[in-house]
């Protein structure tokens, strides 16, 4: 350990994070959301959409959950009324039930007594089938990784594609993998996080990104399997379990063998103005799904630094990492699936900015030694001067190598100028390759002076993080969020989008997915 962090201080930080999270976990356990219920029904086997609706395709899960809510509320969960209705109407599949429901032929009620027991059993069996698919996918990933191998080096090289058209994405992703990418992320269409439904089918018209749909997931994973075989290493696929449909997207990722998902405990609240309670409930469920599916989550601490100052707010990143870690552990995610995020966002004009970056990056590395940390490139200080940008990205890569980061998102010199050209990606990868080739082992020789600038700075940030955690414990996390502690955004607990989709659970609430996921796999 290079920073010689005081184990007492580290333990205090973790204890405070756990205490700060405790009331929020209790709230998450006491509520459900429309999206959690829809995710449960997706696990139980509902697929497809109602294409006859005049507003456009409405996924069947939305039709069913909305109707259940209208008829008997969601406080008992959707599973009981749905599986009770299935039996009452003697329907073969949930899709038939959805169609009947859309035609107004179904009246949902909460069953009692033996009816309840029967509905519960049927729901549990259906959800268990969905989870078996998730389990099979996890086993399949392990098999393919064993066959084709992991990337030969750390950090893994993470590249983004975002054309809006899944077919074009496939072309770009294949090329990126051949050029050395170990992880491909498909950016979502702008605004998908605020849709309260998951679009259906293969899509070709996104805005600055491609819609996350089950079919798009399937297409891209299949393409990457082909190219993995060709390049002789398992190329991982990433998407976004965030926004109003986070739990459903997590389920779809599990069903289609995605490998990493962006999944931050507070991002939606802070940067998308999604209701805090909605987010924490959806978060917990989606993390349970990711734990089951063996999916590495990527948290979004980098975003704080794009709004707040990266030096002054460095400790808020540490605080958020500690909170994300606690929420993840609580939901069953082990350290090796915990891609905590951080970023190289200090203004290059600040004196000793690179040493400050090293201090912050090393602090994250030493606080979370077993987590696959995700290291995010500069965006805020990319000016359009692509020559400066290329140099800055080189220093970013060097910091990543020197501090042992695990997943390196490749920076583009054309950040904030254009969507990357083919050549931008190629040059960016050349930059990474150069640094890895020239200094891949430099970490061995890197020993910051015991009382030097880097060590002192890391201690200072950790100290500030502990102070802030103390204040959050006193204030309550929800109040801290409401007061603008993170990323300068003020988000009151009763505000934000999707609040109407939160339901307090009744005493007889039943959700077989939650029950099955609560038990360690």
């Amino acid at each position, binding site marked *: 350990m290079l920073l010689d962090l005081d184990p007492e201080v580290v333990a205090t930080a973790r204890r405070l994070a756990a205490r700060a999270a405790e009331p929020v976990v209790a709230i998450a356990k006491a509520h459900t959301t429309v999206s959690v219920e829809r995710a449960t029904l997706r696990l139980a086997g509902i697929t497809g959409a109602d294409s006859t609706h005049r*507003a456009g395709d409405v996924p069947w899960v939305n039709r069913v959950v909305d109707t259940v809510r209208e008829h008997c509320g969601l406080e008992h969960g959707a599973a009981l009324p749905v599986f009770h209705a299935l039996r009452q109407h003697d329907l073969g599949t949930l899709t038939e039930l959805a169609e009947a429901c859309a035609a107004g032929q179904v009246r949902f009620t909460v069953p009692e007594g033996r009816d309840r027991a029967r509905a519960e059993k049927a729901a549990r069996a259906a959800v268990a089938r969905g989870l078996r698919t998730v389990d099979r996918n996890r086993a399949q990933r392990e098999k393919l990784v064993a066959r084709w191998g992991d990337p030969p080096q750390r950090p893994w090289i993470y590249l983004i594609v975002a054309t809006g058209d899944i077919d074009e994405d496939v072309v770009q992703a294949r*090329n990126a993998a*051949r*050029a050395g990418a170990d992880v491909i992320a498909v950016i979502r269409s*702008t*605004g998908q996080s*605020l849709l309260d439904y998951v679009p259906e089918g293969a899509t070709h018209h996104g*805005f600055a990104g491609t819609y996350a749909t089950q079919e798009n997931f399937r297409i891209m994973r299949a393409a990457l399997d082909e190219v993995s075989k060709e390049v002789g290493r398992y190329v991982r696929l990433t998407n976004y379990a965030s926004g109003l449909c986070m739990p459903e997207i997590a389920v779809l990722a599990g069903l289609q063998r995605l490998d990493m998902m962006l999944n931050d405990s507070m991002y939606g609240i*802070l*940067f*998308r*103005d999604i209701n805090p309670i909605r987010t924490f409930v959806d978060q917990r469920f989606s993390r349970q799904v990711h734990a089951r599916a063996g999916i590495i989550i990527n948290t979004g601490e980098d975003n704080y630094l*794009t*709004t707040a100052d990266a030096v002054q707010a460095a400790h808020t990143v540490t605080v958020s990492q500690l909170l994300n870690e606690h929420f993840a552990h609580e939901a069953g995610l082990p350290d090796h699936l915990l891609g905590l995020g951080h970023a190289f966002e200090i203004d290059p004009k600040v004196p000793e900015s690179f040493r400050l970056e090293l201090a912050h990056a090393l602090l994250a590395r030493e606080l979370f030694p077993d987590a696959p940390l995700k290291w995010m490139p500069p*965006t805020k200080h*990319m000016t359009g001067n692509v020559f400066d940008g290329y140099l800055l990205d080189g220093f970013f890569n060097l910091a990543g190598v020197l501090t042992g980061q695990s997943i390196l998102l490749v920076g583009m010199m054309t*950040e*904030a100028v254009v969507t990357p*050209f*083919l*050549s931008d990606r*190629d*040059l960016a990868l050349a930059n990474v390759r150069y640094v890895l080739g020239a200094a891949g082992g430099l970490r061995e020789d890197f020993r910051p002076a015991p009382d030097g600038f880097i060590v002192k700075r890391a201690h200072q940030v950790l100290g500030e993080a502990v102070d802030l955690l103390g204040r959050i414990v006193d204030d309550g996390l929800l109040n801290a969020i409401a007061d603008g502690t993170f*990323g*300068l*955004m003020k988000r009151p607990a009763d505000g934000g*989008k999707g609040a109407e989709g939160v339901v307090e659970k009744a005493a007889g609430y039943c959700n077989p997915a939650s029950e099955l996921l609560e038990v360690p796999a």
Partner: protein
Amino acid sequence: MKRHVRPYGDTTGDGMVQTSFTLPVPFGPKADGAARQLANRMGIDPAMVVHSHAIGEEFTFFVVYGPVRHVVDLEQVRVVEREYPLLSPAEVNAAVRKLLRRKLVVVGACIGTDAHTVGIDAILNIKGFAGEKGLEYYRELKVVNLGAQVPVPELVRRARAEKADAVLVSQVVTQRDAHLLNTREMAAAFREAMGARRPLLIAGGPRFDPLAAGELGVDRVFGRGTTPGEVASYLVHAVRSRKEVAA
């Protein structure tokens, strides 16, 4: 400054430029020749392909140096002068503090049946657009985002209740000119309800013509590609102009 100028490499008038591009041609002598031809047609002559390398099997990347034969006539340079300067968030905040001595209130919505909040969210959400933070990020702006499918009377009511300085509406759907009809309806409703004391009215969307503001009865129309910074800078400019008229 002379009237006629050429690019400057290391000697006055040498015309030297450098450029880089990719062609969908496999790496090799033919690719380099193709790059030279393109550079010649761009006016670079003689073109030196100082570097080329393959990107995959089908593409080649080039770096080209050489003198351009074109000459710039500075008297023929026409630039569109924006009537207001582009301000940084800090400058916007400072200007609002000075002008109003309180926060500037912005109410935003998608009106009518339009459920596409992409545009209004890109401008208002802190996440922002094109590398710029949204208006929520500005300390001196109070942003109230009413979201999608807001009826016009509700928008007027909320704008009044919030004492809005500006109302931003976003319209993406253009079927049967819905965006134009909705915007006119909104402008008329504000005129009727508040007269000259109405807030600044701003419409935005990919299919709007920025020159149509007067015809639509709004103060400003923003088209495709507008960034939050432009909107914020405009707000400062418009509030300042209004105060000057009132004074």
